[in-house]
């Protein structure tokens, strides 16, 4: 495949400013169980590719499944770029790389036969269903994948990269007197099948939560001092800040550049946020991104001050910054765009006790169901506990937090010393319509954080 890509590029490299070809071969195994049944037992056997050309700032992009017609598709991409280009192609410099990257997993998903995966998941499923009479149904969603990506560009980069990915969500839905609730646990990895083993304790904890939530009151909506656990804080940093760091929102807009100017204060001096592609084992780990750029640990906020953002070569080139290895695509159907990898709040110095000490009324928000962001962001905790007079009190449900990019980060007043790396199933979604890319594997990490005055919706 490498030769094929290199041959094709050599034929077309002179016809445009920049050309790249990416071909992917991948297998995905998906197993979904719900209630007593296997809902989905599916294998994916895909081969597809894409070609992207730049000419005078214009871009042509063509995807395909029929690899034998590669020349035709490449030529179409170049033609499109030429039709559009009127200015100048400005891609940030990237090193020329010739490399072969084996996935080198700790435990390879391909080495585990399907029946073993099925037996394991069926066992978990039965455990959820049998946990308590009020657990009415279960959800087990397992997905593993192994992918080979061949990437070549007209600058001479030629990379073969293997990637493994695994994620699993396990949930229990409870019901009593017309009230239904849900709780879940989730694991993920880029190099170890064994993260899905020995989850019994975590499953029991999730089921217990689903049962307890049945009797928990809905939180009274209002503004609260809120302590978020590492899981929720990870979702928070992803939604509240990570998406705003993705440079495509900035590079074409002078106004956005002013708003997101390096040196701008975004939080108090204790706040440090980074995005890393080099956390081995994280679902956000990758050696090279989808433009063949080596990844790195990118500081975004240092001591409360904005210092970095997440780039493709184009966004970096236009802003005169360095590419960061954040050009990612879910698969060959999509062009690379700036995306997060493993986004983290760095640990601080506070203990959990210090965070709740002396708090008359507040909320301890735990676990995350997910989030969504624009300028306003919203994210939902799995559950909450009221903090009353410095102590963790009753459990509450429907804890949906909402805030504004420019104010909420500033309201973080304490950061814990208890950093946790969070790897879950599922993934990040971005874009809309045809440009919607999901699920992109990402990781998150954070200690406990405390936010003064965040709005929680409830009743």
């Amino acid at each position, binding site marked *: 495949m490498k030769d094929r890509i290199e041959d094709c590029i050599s034929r077309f490299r002179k016809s445009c400013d920049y050309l790249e070809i990416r071909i992917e071969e991948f297998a995905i195994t998906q197993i979904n169980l719900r209630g007593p049944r296997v809902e989905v037992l599916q294998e994916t056997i895909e081969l597809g590719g894409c070609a992207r050309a730049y000419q005078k700032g214009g871009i042509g992009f063509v995807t395909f499944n029929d690899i034998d017609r590669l020349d035709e598709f490449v030529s179409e991409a170049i033609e499109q770029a030429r039709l559009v280009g009127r200015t100048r192609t400005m891609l940030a410099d990237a090193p020329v790389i010739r490399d072969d990257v084996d996935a080198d997993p700790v435990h390879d998903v391909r080495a585990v036969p399907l029946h073993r995966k099925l037996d394991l998941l069926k066992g978990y499923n039965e455990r959820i269903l049998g946990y308590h009479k009020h657990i009415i149904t279960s959800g087990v969603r397992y997905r593993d994948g192994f992918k080979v990506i061949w990437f070549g560009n007209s600058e001479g980069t030629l990379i073969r990269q293997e990637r493994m990915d695994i994620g699993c969500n396990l949930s229990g839905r409870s019901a009593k007197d017309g009230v239904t609730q849900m709780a879940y646990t989730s694991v993920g990895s880029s190099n170890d099948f064994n993260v899905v083993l020995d989850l019994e304790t975590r499953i029991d904890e999730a089921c217990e939560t689903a049962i307890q939530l049945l009797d928990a009151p809905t939180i009274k909506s209002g503004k609260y001092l809120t302590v978020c656990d590492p899981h929720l804080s990870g979702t928070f940093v992803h939604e509240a800040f990570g998406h705003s760091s993705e440079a495509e929102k900035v590079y074409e807009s002078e106004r956005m550049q002013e708003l997101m100017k390096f040196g701008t204060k975004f939080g108090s001096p204790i706040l440090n946020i980074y995005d890393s592609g080099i956390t081995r084992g994280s679902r956000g780990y990758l050696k090279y991104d989808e433009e063949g750029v080596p990844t790195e640990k990118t500081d975004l906020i240092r001591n409360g001050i904005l210092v970095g953002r997440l780039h493709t070569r184009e966004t970096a080139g236009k802003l005169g910054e360095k590419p960061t290895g954040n050009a990612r695509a879910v698969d060959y*159907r999509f062009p690379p765009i700036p995306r997060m990898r493993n986004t983290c709040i760095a640990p601080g110095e506070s203990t959990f006790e210090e965070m709740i000490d002396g708090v008359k009324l507040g909320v301890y928000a735990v676990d995350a169901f997910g989030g969504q962001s624009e300028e306003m962001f*919203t994210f939902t905790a799995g559950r909450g506990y009221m903090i009353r007079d410095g102590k963790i009190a009753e459990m509450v449900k429907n804890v*949906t937090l909402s805030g504004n990019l420019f104010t909420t980060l500033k309201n973080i007043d304490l950061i814990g010393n208890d950093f946790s790396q969070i790897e879950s199933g599922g993934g990040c979604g971005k874009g809309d319509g045809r440009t919607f890319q999901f699920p992109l594997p990402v990781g998150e990490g954070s200690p406990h954080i405390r936010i003064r005055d965040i709005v929680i919706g409830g009743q």
Partner: protein
Amino acid sequence: MKALFDSLVKKTDSAELFELDSTVNLIIFESGHLKNLNTLNSKGAAVRAVAGGKLGQAIVSDMRSPGETAERIRKLAEQGDPVSFKFSDAASVPTLNLVDDRIADLGSKEIVELGQEAVEAIKAYDSNVTADFIGERTLDRVRVMTSRGADLHFERLFFSYGISAELIEPQNILRLGKYAKGITPPKTPLETARDVIRDLRIGRNNVSFKPGRMPVLFAPSAMSDVLMAFTGSVDGDLVAKGVSPLSRRMGEQLLDPRISILDDPWHPDGIMSAPFDDEGTPTFRKPLIEKGVLKQFMTDRKSAAALDINPSGNGYRAVPFERYKSFGVGISTEFSNLIIEPGQTQLDRLRAGIRYGIEIHQINGILLGDLIGGDFSGSLEIAYLIENGERTGRVKNAMVAGNFFKIFKDQLVDMSAEQQWSGTFGGCSGSLLLPYILTDGVDISGTD
């Protein structure tokens, strides 16, 4: 593709192959400039097969060794659960014209011109506003073959576009998006750009408001999101499992008698129109809610079998929450084109009757709620304050919360005579034809 199907038929008890060969042309303007032309060619199959009475499924775009792939699918199926339904044996399906010559004649060059007009109009309104445009022309060629003799085809062509305008000021971001889609030519991009400008004039002015219970006018783009608190409840799959609260409520008055909700796969303009669904079940028009009364659930073949009824032709392979087909996606029960019958009052008059209320156009975060049961909540991304019958500015930092079956049963005030094609996520995804709906006493909380 045929080789894979033939091989599967030989090796398994029964088989179904959904083939999608689609060509999508995208024309992308960024910040007012033509930036990007894409052609997305996609050709592959989604397969389901039964071996030893058990079901397995596969997504295949690597067609290099069909025999080997069929063997792999057979082995997979053997480890599945016992199959509970049969593949389609439909011999005939309705005839629908889903390729309009006016769209067929719309080339990339023409779409570029349409996009140019739209972004120029927005630039002319205010050069500080940046305008994006995405035009899309999609040709889907669908074929479903089953070992029970079905071999069905259709072709569908549609044009769609989105225009978004972004205004960035210190501590304020306003992003307004409007979309149009159709199998016949929709409203022109220039007309839509004018709608965007009209909303920009109002939306750039942020106003404070008094939280509480108040009249809320749901625009079609917000209503599309709110409807997610309903569609799950009529999803035959969730009904069969007893998860839907409506499982035993067929024939009951669930909503205001003025509300009728129709699943219409034959609408001449609906981008989800099709003679058969992605399981090869012939489609038909049906009320889900008629005059407020629950009339029908939506089913695919599996959920229909579980409910012991005929499948309703609602088994689709569409990208979750988006409305375009993909062979890479499993069958799920979904509506085709969802239509709420209009009211009789002109939109202007609806607004004019509001003394103090909120008009919501885009809700953020609706999917984060547990929508089954009808509860929904989200923050207001695009919403306007209405004072004495007029929109006076944008309301930010607010959340809406309510229950679908309460609000649209006891709190409905009126619906507009105008309907608009819209979709979830601010209108983007398409295939819902809805009026503006005015309700009273909806909770709007402030988040400032």
